[in-house]
């Protein structure tokens, strides 16, 4: 294999990329933009939930309860005139929950019988229901304290130490993960489209008619995209650190190694798709189905892998994004080193070499006249 020929192919690819400023801009700006926007938009700790409140008791106790709710940053009180109008607001999706306080609230409380208030939740939107329930759990004790003045002391003090993300900062959780998702998608799409385009317009055949060997063509074609991808990673890294203040406790070289492997794998996958598909439209479809959706939904980005049924847990082991997700998060937040991350790295390396091998073999096979 001659490096010189691979280099020539790479150079041509670079010209293609540079001459299409649209694609170039998107390739670099897209990850940037996504991470920025979503780093800002995504906040799991719910706040400002609109809750309809019907106070049927109108006593000091009930007012203190409503106060306790309203003064927290979690809820926005929306007073309702009747019980039914409160419930109706939840039904109509104007409010996410309704609190109905019965007329005997204070009476029951002070008589030691324990007061009850009704909480009605809109269960059709999972993004808020779980949080509301757990907040009300917290609220229970807080509100009780405020009203009765008694401290509710649990038998056992539970001291929780949240490691690596002590303040439960959503951004710290999301941003390293988002980076992985965006880059996975980008690298598959870029390669599958560009190479497919060459098949479509026939210039691939031209390339193959030269003395260049398939392996040289592949390396030459993929290399500029590796560089592009690494550039994008660098940008996103800068935003994560400087814009969001995500800590980076680990070793940069380890991260670089992981990134390189990761990119190479997805680029190879993109190549494989393009060889198999030969047209841009089909490539794009396959890339979406095998790249975009899985890396967004099955990589452990938001939905934890441990919670998936066993079959899927094993399936995700085939996904490079899943491995790089752990590497990325752990290197950023935990400061893990190669030893800690040996499993993800080995897995990634295996998948990478497998993918590249299949891509090369398929390329050769489909290309032999």
């Amino acid at each position, binding site marked *: 294999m001659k490096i010189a020929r691979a280099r020539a192919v790479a150079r041509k690819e670079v010209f293609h990329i540079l001459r299409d400023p649209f694609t170039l801009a998107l390739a670099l700006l897209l990850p940037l933009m996504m991470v920025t926007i979503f780093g800002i938009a995504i906040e799991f700790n719910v706040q400002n939930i609109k809750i309809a409140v019907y106070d049927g008791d109108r006593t000091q106790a009930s007012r203190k309860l409503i106060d306790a709710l309203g003064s927290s940053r979690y809820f926005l009180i929306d007073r309702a005139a009747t019980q039914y109008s409160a419930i109706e607001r939840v039904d109509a999706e104007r409010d996410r929950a309704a609190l109905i306080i019965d007329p005997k609230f204070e009476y029951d409380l002070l008589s030691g019988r324990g007061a009850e208030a009704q909480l009605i939740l809109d269960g059709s939107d999972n993004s808020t229901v779980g949080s509301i329930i757990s907040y009300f759990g917290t609220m229970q004790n807080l509100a009780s304290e405020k009203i009765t003045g008694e401290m509710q002391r649990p038998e056992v003090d539970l001291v929780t130490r949240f490691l690596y993300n002590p303040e439960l900062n959503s951004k710290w959780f999301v941003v390293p993960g988002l980076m992985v998702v965006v880059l996975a998608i980008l690298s598959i799409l870029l390669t599958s489209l560009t190479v497919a385009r060459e098949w479509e317009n026939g210039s691939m055949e031209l390339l193959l008619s030269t003395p260049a060997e398939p392996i040289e063509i592949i390396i030459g074609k993929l290399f500029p995209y590796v560089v592009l991808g690494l550039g994008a990673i660098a940008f996103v890294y800068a935003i994560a650190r400087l814009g969001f203040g995500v800590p980076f406790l680990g070793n940069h070289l380890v991260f670089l190694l992981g990134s390189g492997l990761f990119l190479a794998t997805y680029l190879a996958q993109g190549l494989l798709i393009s060889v198999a598909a030969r047209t841009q439209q089909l490539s794009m479809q396959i890339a979406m189905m095998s790249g975009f959706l899985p890396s967004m939904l099955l990589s452990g980005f938001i939905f934890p892998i441990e919670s998936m049924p066993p079959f899927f847990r094993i399936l995700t082991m085939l996904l490079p994004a899943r491995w790089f997700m752990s590497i990325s*998060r752990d290197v950023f937040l935990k400061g893990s080193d190669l030893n800690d991350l040996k499993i993800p790295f080995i897995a990634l390396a295996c998948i990478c070499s497998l993918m590249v091998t299949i891509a090369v073999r398929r390329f050769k096979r489909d290309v032999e006249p």
Partner: protein
Amino acid sequence: MKIKINPTILGFIKKEFSQALRDPRMRMMLFAAPIMQMTLFGIALTSDVKNVRLSFQPRPNDTVLEHVVEHALASKWFISAHTTRMDPFEQVQSDEADVVIVPPPEGLTESIGRGQGRVQILVNASNVIKAQSVEAYIRSILDQVVANDFQRGITAPPIHFDMRILFNPSMETPVFMVPGVMSTLICLITILLTSMSISKEKETGTFEMLVSAPVKIWEIMLGKTLPYVMLGMSNIPLILAVAVFAFGVPMRGNLIILFIAAFFFICTTVAVGTLISVVTKTQQQSMMGGFLFLFPAIQLSGMMFPIENMPLGMKVLAYLNPITYFLEMLRNIMLKGGDSHVILSHLAVLALMAVILTTISYKKFHTTLS
């Protein structure tokens, strides 16, 4: 009465279908893949926290601790961690455990007995949602074990909230997730295919041939978009069937209304695809453009992250997003049976979006090559 259909548009539909459906792989992508994806994601995706690896620092004769661990492992939330290291921090660091219980040196049993009950837990908080759930679970297990072992009634807090969850009482995740996955799959197909198909004509030069015939702009636009609206609609029954029969997502509303909602949505997304293709020149650019729209649209639709929490700027974007409206309608129709004012208002918004997008595309479309 014979309805006269514009022959040009009919011709387009035939052509697009021939081209799209000829390749068996394309057929698979268009029909089998969405079903597969739906099934996959419906099963796999859950935000419930399970299989959390629990480890603990042993203390001699600490019955309460033992009971806590037993209880935890018996629940579906925790599994036992296989640890090789002793230090609790290292256990979490090396990813052997997700949570470690660190009782006080004298043991939990003793410390509670003395009235100084205290226990520490170390939780890997890289996943914020998971961490919060873990804390909540342990808290409740702790309370229960303590009440049992010490024969003290759990002092009921004076205020108790009786919770009723509407529309999805069992809080099953597929019921949440599946409408989201449906919306995503549909607009993925429609936007990308539509935008790439027009760009492909420009790229191969057949566009020139198209405009050399005396066709009107709206004929070309309709001709290129109708086939994809039809393709999109054909996916709906497939995906819906998976949702209802495989996942038991309730379908409490009217099927026809759902189809109407889907139709409006698909028209809007196809309009997005058209606009993208009108301003781009190559298929790759169209794909990038489509992606530029899709990625934020999926994230900002309320499917995964609550819209309420977003800062104002993002919220605005979320409300400009067609997926948001379709998702809400879908959930409303399937889970609540369909409230007319919700549906009508959302349909109106989608219709408005489609009209605006189509008008802009029309204006930018040229039947000349200037």
